[in-house]
């Protein structure tokens, strides 16, 4: 399903990655896959035989939408823009893969370069996945200018459509594998020679043969240095350029220094050689990096799985029939035909029909859900049964599927304070390493000059803070990936931190503890002269269509034919809606809001745990709608397990007292507040925080955005279509509360593992330094120790992937976990 890069104009083969060759033919630059093809093509053109290309059989009609390096302006075309860039108003956002990024110093470089451009709003770079999410003002900056600017700094930008992510990943994997194979193959040879040389030292060896073996070792080490160790050198160099030396600097110094010294020793036929240590160091370090990359890719699996969901084509309904169209060609308001077994390719509204869909990859829930006329469906949902026609509302980068992908990306780019601290420590460590090494070298030079170099080399290698730098990011990546599979997206990792520090969890009752899918249960006429109840319901529904409050969703979707056109709409958050239909001014909402302007109206007592919505015109209250909203199926279980874990739980609801009290009683929650306006909730959060409490706010993420933002950490449940607007630190995609318990458990595991990792890395560095400085470690032991410590940290973090949530929706999380492992 992936598109191949533009084929070579001459031979029709795909142009390999990293090649940027063009031949000028008939006034146009054509892509070429190799200098050979370029030579032939230019030869043909120079011989005046260009007609050849017109007459030959088309080698392969494979066309491609992806322009190559240097042709950025193509990216401004609408097709491509729609594919890669998500636009809201003037703000554009795109995920860009950054080839040539090796280290945190590069992140700094990239950040700085972009901030100089006009119109850049936000840059978040994930050094782990080598991707950036960039937001910019599209009036000030064209997408092509952005890409060109990135290329100028020296990176190879490749905008990521969801379906390209896997390609970039595979390419990275292949490169790393090649480096590892070369390091292993050549490394084995060098180590064999080294064994022979050591044996020779002990039992005697003919001078000629010894020299010969040393020369051979040198030759075989060359590919290790030139090919396998290249990423280390590149990263070190960038670090120097950005004046922020990273951990690859000591690594490169060690490899480079040892190689130069050994080469000289081989040339002079005198002195020690360290080719075996170099080979081993590069091999094991590459292996650790390789595993870390695999870990990262596994964390990424969810995002990739999301991306691979979408089909290439869709069935569009046109006048008098169907046509198959490429996904890129779909536009808003196209009408698609959806059949059983299809994966829905876009976000849309069902115009007719009824389908049952599986949204497990989007929400982590395996139960299929019924969707019928008027309801919306999301890209990536799999249709089990039923047929429907769907009107496209969002395509490409604007679908909620793409939004989830970007959110995952941003989440992985987020660096919590603890990671930033570890980074800073690691950076000082590098300086310290260099200083200690120099001092060791000088000291040993006076004690025993012959061992000065060897000891300094061992010190340089063994003290490298690789494990320290990997400790936190590796664990966070694994935790984020694990939670994403359970349908819990961590946007800012501070939420994981706060959840481990026994905060107060505040639930906003509406839509969080309850199903959040309220229905109008009864419509009661309160005035004898009022129109019949079903007509009142239509009116109410028409007005409520203007509101996004959860209760508004209880009303049936308005039939366009009823022709209820709204005027003077005013949405009062937390209260209701005022609007005019025809000449009548209506108010709908809470009793108090509706009655505000009515003099002779006697407030009625609320009817139990249900919420009532009232409809009034300018003079009378016309009707009461009883809206039922049941507790979520696993609310009871979730609250219980949270309480077991010693969390304090509170309900802060905008609903009236009786309803909130009833729910609180059913769930056994002692602390609850009712009748709160959004301002009240905000004040509550502020008060609690002033008392020194940590507050986790759980809301629906839409009309309580300021409250969510004020809390120490926030979780949005079931944000659905409004995902993009959710301002929460974490989003639970499913309809089950259980994900919260899973998150709490994984957060605790993550914290434990980060602590273990940091403790281990610090212990290792602190014990290894004295040993190396005192000359007790040979360079090969140092190489082994250092790479082993990094490996241990990565493997420890990987345990989070297998971490099972003990409670909470065992069926759902169990299934997704297995799916994740097999993939």
């Amino acid at each position, binding site marked *: 399903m992936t598109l191949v890069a533009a084929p070579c104009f001459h031979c029709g*083969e795909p142009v390999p990655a990293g090649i940027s060759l063009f031949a000028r033919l008939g006034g146009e630059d054509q892509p070429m896959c190799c200098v*050979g093809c370029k*030579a*032939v093509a230019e*030869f043909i053109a*120079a011989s005046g035989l260009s007609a*050849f290309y017109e007459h030959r059989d088309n080698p392969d009609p494979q066309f491609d939408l992806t322009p190559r390096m240097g042709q950025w302006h193509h990216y401004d075309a609408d097709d491509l823009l729609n594919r890669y860039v998500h636009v809201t108003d003037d703000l554009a956002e795109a995920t860009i893969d950054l080839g040539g990024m090796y280290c945190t110093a590069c992140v700094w470089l990239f950040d700085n370069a972009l901030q100089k451009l006009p119109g850049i709003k936000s840059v978040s770079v994930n050094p782990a996945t080598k991707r950036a999410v960039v937001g910019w003002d599209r009036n000030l900056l064209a997408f092509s200018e952005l890409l060109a600017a990135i290329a100028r700094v020296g990176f190879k930008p490749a905008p990521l459509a969801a379906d390209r992510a896997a390609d970039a990943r595979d390419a990275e994997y292949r490169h790393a594998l*090649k480096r590892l194979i070369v390091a292993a193959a050549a490394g084995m040879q060098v180590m064999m020679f080294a064994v022979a040389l050591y044996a020779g030292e002990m039992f005697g060896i003919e001078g000629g043969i010894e020299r010969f073996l040393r020369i*051979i070792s040198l030759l*075989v080490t060359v590919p290790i240095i030139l090919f396998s160790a290249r990423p280390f050198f590149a990263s070190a160099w960038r670090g120097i350029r950005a004046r922020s030396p990273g951990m690859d600097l000591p690594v490169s110094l060690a490899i480079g220094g040892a190689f130069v010294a050994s080469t000289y020793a081989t040339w002079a036929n005198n002195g020690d050689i360290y080719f075996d240590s170099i080979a081993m160091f590069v091999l094991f370090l590459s292996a650790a990096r390789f595993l870390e990359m695999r870990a990262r890719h596994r964390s990424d699996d969810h995002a990739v799985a999301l991306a691979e969901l979408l089909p290439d084509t869709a069935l569009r309904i046109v006048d008098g029939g169907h046509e198959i169209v490429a996904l890129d060609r779909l536009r808003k308001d196209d009408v698609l035909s959806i059949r059983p077994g299809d994966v829905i390719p876009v976000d849309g509204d069902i115009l007719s029909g009824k389908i049952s869909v599986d949204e497990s990859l989007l929400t982590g829930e395996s139960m299929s859900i019924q969707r019928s006329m008027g309801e919306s469906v999301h890209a990536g949902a799999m249709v089990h049964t039923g047929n429907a026609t769907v009107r496209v509302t969002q395509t490409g980068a604007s679908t909620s599927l793409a939004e989830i992908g970007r959110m995952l990306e941003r989440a992985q780019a987020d660096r919590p304070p603890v990671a930033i601290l570890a980074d800073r420590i690691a950076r000082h460590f590098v300086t310290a390493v260099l200083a200690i090494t120099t001092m060791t070298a000088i000291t040993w030079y006076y004690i025993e000059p012959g061992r000065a170099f060897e000891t300094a080399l061992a010190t340089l290698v063994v003290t490298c803070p690789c494990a320290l730098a990997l400790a936190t990011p590796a664990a966070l990546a694994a935790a984020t990936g694990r939670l994403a599979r359970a349908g819990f997206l961590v946007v800012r990792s501070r939420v994981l931190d706060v959840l481990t520090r026994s905060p107060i969890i505040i639930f906003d009752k509406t839509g969080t503890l309850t199903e959040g899918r309220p229905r109008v249960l009864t419509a009661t006429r309160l005035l004898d002269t009022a129109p019949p109840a079903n007509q009142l319901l239509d009116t109410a529904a028409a007005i409520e269509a203007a509101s996004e409050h959860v209760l508004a969703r209880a009303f049936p979707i308005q039939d366009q034919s009823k022709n209820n056109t709204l005027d003077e709409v005013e949405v009062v958050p937390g209260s209701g809606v005022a609007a005019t239909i025809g000449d009548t001014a209506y108010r709908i909402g809470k009793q108090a809001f509706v009655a505000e302007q009515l003099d002779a109206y006697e407030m009625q007592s609320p009817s139990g745990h249900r919420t009532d919505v009232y409809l009034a015109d300018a003079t009378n209250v016309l009707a009461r709608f009883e809206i039922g909203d049941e507790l979520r199926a696993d609310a009871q279980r979730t609250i219980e397990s949270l309480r077991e874990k010693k969390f304090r739980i509170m309900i802060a609801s905008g609903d009236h007292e009786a309803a909130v009290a009833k729910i609180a009683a059913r769930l056994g929650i002692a602390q609850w507040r009712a009748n709160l306006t959004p301002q009240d909730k905000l004040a509550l959060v502020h008060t609690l925080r002033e008392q020194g409490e940590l507050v986790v706010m759980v809301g629906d993420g839409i009309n309580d955005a300021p409250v969510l933002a004020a809390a120490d950490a926030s979780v949005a449940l079931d944000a659905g279509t409004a995902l993009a607007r959710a301002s929460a630190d974490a989003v639970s995609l499913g309809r089950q509360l259980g994900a919260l318990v899973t998150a709490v458990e994984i957060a605790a595991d993550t914290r434990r593992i980060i602590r273990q990792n940091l403790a281990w890395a610090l212990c290792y560095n602190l014990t290894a330094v004295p040993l190396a400085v005192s000359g007790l470690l040979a360079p090969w032991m140092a190489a082994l120790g250092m790479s082993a410590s990094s490996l241990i940290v990565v493997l420890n973090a990987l345990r989070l992937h297998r971490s099972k949530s003990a409670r909470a929706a065992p069926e759902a999380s169990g299934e997704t976990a297995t799916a994740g492992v097999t993939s």
Partner: protein
Amino acid sequence: MNPELLLPAALLAGFFGSTHCIGMCGAIVVLFEQQKSAGMRRWLRRILYNSGRLGFYVLLGAIAGSASAVIVATAGARTTLLILRLIAGILVIAIGLNLIFNWNFTRFIENAGARIWQRLAPLARHVLPVETPARALGAGFLWGALPCGLVYSAVAMAATSGSAVNGSLVMLSFWAGTLPALIFAGATAARLQRWKSMPAFRRMAGGIMIVLGLSAMGPFRQLIH
């Protein structure tokens, strides 16, 4: 020196070599044949092009081979020959890996070759259109000079062969490997190409070459007692 390693390796490299032999060089055959053939029969012409190509390869092989002969003569036979053998082994392994992973390690040599080609390309006007047997031979010769990573890896093998004759033989067997793809044109060649680019065959050929390369390193064990 070690023809038992280099000759089969060169043949395999030529045969399985590049997936785009047909794409890149096939165009040349088609191009040559689009022009007036001046009475020459098709097969004669094709044999002439390919002979010209062989001529250029053999020339390259002889130069590379004698370069290694000079090193052997000046630096002492025993050690140098062994080193050459080792390099040859590594080279064959690398070409084998190249086949399996489709990984082009000769790219930087190709760029150098492209510069040389730019000098040679103007000679084309002496051989085009291909009207006489001599011109066909010349065109083939020039064809051999096109920058091509595959040819350079064969030349590198020739450079470890230790003598001009061996170098030429290496290039001859490389040429023989490429011949099936280039003497036929059109459908036959395309079918052959499809068959050759099947991953299983490429992996098998790569595997054979890696075994060949490893076996070339065998004699070192004699050195290490």
